[in-house]
């Protein structure tokens, strides 16, 4: 169990959130309505409202707990929490930033590796083809995760029902350029 420290830190995650995405975790008064409505809460290691509480403490240890949690990756971005939040704290927006931070600081929760793998594969396919190509995505995902037998049932049926195209609709497009520009800017600002 960690002790929440009261000492105020510069550039705590809550400051970062406020600066970059305008989300104020201090507004949260811990009513728990977000956790109550969250469809994934039962799977999470830290409930959404507790994530906010941890950030409120501004303690390094608490933030580490958040960034290395499974919860941030289990957020479905279904927006139910913010839709009903009495204080209108935009949790999904916060979650986006927390995931990015978790990646950046290499704190991704072990169980979340698949999810990260999926997202990365997804983005790669887009980078390569400009559009999503399911087979390409699945293939890369399987390589990354070694879940070779998953979906062996569904895929063939999809094929047969014409829901999977074997050749990507190829748009060697600008998209890869967008990626490189973003990359440049990142290095620049870093």
């Amino acid at each position, binding site marked *: 169990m960690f002790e929440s420290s009261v000492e105020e830190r510069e550039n705590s995650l809550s400051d970062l959130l406020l600066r970059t995405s305008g989300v104020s975790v201090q507004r949260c008064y811990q*009513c*728990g309505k977000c*956790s*109550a*409505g969250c469809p994934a*809460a*039962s799977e999470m290691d830290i*409930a959404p409202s507790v994530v906010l509480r941890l950030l409120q403490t501004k303690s390094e240890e608490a933030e580490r707990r958040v960034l290395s949690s499974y919860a941030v990756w289990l957020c479905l971005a279904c927006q*139910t929490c913010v839709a009903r939040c*009495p204080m209108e704290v935009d949790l999904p927006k916060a979650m986006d930033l927390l995931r990015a931070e978790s990646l950046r600081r290499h704190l991704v929760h072990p169980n979340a590796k698949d999810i990260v793998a999926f997202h990365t594969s997804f983005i790669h396919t887009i980078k390569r083809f400009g559009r999503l190509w399911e087979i390409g995505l699945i293939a890369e995902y399987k390589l990354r995760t070694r879940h070779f037998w998953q979906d062996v049932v569904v895929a063939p049926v999809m094929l047969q029902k014409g829901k999977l195209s074997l050749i990507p609709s190829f748009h060697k497009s600008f998209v890869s350029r967008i990626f490189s520009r973003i990359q440049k800017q990142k290095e620049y600002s870093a």
Partner: protein
Amino acid sequence: MSRIGVFICHCGENISATVDCEKVAKTVAGVPGVAHSVDYKYMCSDPGQNLIRQAIKEKELTGVVVAACSPRMHEPTFRRTCAESGLNPFLCEMANLREHCSWVHAKGDATTKKAADLVSMMVEKVKRNKPLFPIKVPVTKTALVIGGGIAGIQAALDIANAGQKVIMVEHDPSIGGHMSQLSETFPTLDCSQCILTPRMVEIAQHQNITLYTYAEVESLTGFIGNFTARIRKKAKSIDEKACTGCGECATACPIKKIPSEFNARLGLRSAIYIPFPQAVPNKPVIDRTRCSYFKTGKCKFCQTKCPANAIHFDQQDELIDIEVGSVVVATGFNIKETSFFPEYGYGKYKDVLTGLQFERLLSASGPTLGEPRRPSDGTVPKKIVFIACAGSRDPAKGIEYCSKICCMYTAKHAMLYKHKVHDGDAYVFYMDIRAGGKGYDEFVRRAIEEDQVNYIRGRVSRVYERGEKLIVRGADTLLGAQPVEIEADMVVLATAGIANDGAEELAQKLHVSYDAHHFFSEAHPKLRPVETNTAGIFLAGACQAPKDIPDSVGQASAAASKVLGLFSADELTREPLIAVVNRSAPPVFSTCVGCFTCQTACPYNAIEREEIKTRDGMLIKTVAKVNSGLCQGCGTCVAFCRSKSIDLQGYSNEQVYAEVMEVLA
């Protein structure tokens, strides 16, 4: 040629430590018009005051300047001193040498120079002071109480029992307000009606109280001690004198499916109805919006059945003008409907109720005779969920404030439910338990410990129907906010307390201020909690903010004591520091050109139109006139006046210009 006396006070060392008082006295002695200038250790002491008294007589002073502490400290003292020796008190001014000079500056010439300036400024002012005389306004010793809930009832009885006249105006057909709807009251669980109804009857029978029910305040004019209120008595379509209250008419009425306001829409009433058995007065009214005669021109069943033929369809609204000296506003509050909560079922689930509806279910006089039953199928709920803060403390829904009463009545509801349904389960979802009050927290503990109500700390996210059940999805924030799902038979929302509809309009009629949520504002949140910013108008009960019964009654008695204080004298005396419009000899009469810009500026509607006419009634000109009763002396009108025709006594243009010119000379 004015003869001003100047008296410089050392205030022990307080002034003389940094200001050379002798020097100041000498300097000022040189100012033209100063007939006498001395300094003394303690001007406010008896010997000090005697110096002033003597000088006024011996030197025949026409004005006095006391240079000492802040006028906010001793102005009354020295003005009294002057009055005692025959000098009009308003010919005495103070120069603030202590707070504004000696205490805030170091010893030195600059400080002494400033002191001298401050004194001579006042000398120049006093030269131009005019003798003024306190204004006396008569007081009409009748109080108007708006609202017949517990707060209004308490205030009215206190005033009436002290021997003063009261006129009570209630907008519903009966007095009693929300308290008459309640089952039992926390923290003692005594029956609400049992303690209330005797007082309702007392109101009706009290010789000092005139009661107008089914009536509204149309307008209020005038000022403290001298208001005129216009009351609209809505047509009840009943001759109250003739009516015996037998109730035959209600039984005869064919329109019976109207949701009853008294039963919070859980019961039904007819178009002609007595709101509830203990109503005061116990006479029916016809709801013209529902009555089939008024809608179709046919029916009149009630009239044919009435043994006293007391029913008059042609009755008209009646307008009554009454003179009152003071007003107590006790119009109460209302509650948000469940439709305010889409996530809790849009008010479309029959078994999702408001706290007030649940009160009716618990009340022996209620639609289920005190047995909690589901509106949907009449079964007794075995599992019931109470949701606190339903709407309160919810900025997203536009209500930031805490409604104050919900924590307690929710505990009471859960407790009473357990008393009536022993094998039932009661759950309370709460954020905080705010049980500040005598015996309040003990009460909540009792609910938890003795009656085993399950308190869960967390807000509910959603309520939805599954078959017969209501699924309540919440979280337990004390267990790491783990999700909680309860299959309930009934859900009760502690909906927010809100201002009554029409509160805003009423506030504007009465010229009292109100907050963003349309609750009426007190003059000062701590030190003037029952006054409004309009003299003579006081607040009682939940029209100011959600309140429980003890608080409402307390504030009502406080308001009553304010009224009685006002009525304790036949006349009000007010400082004459008010605005006046100049008058001059014909043919000018006044430099006022009648543009009435001042009227728009005045916060107190104190500026009236006066028509100057010839003897044979020919209109010469219309000019502004200040109502000395209403004017509070802010002087805004003076700054607005384009022709400099309106001026403020005690702070006249002449006076302030003289002060400024003097210091810059």
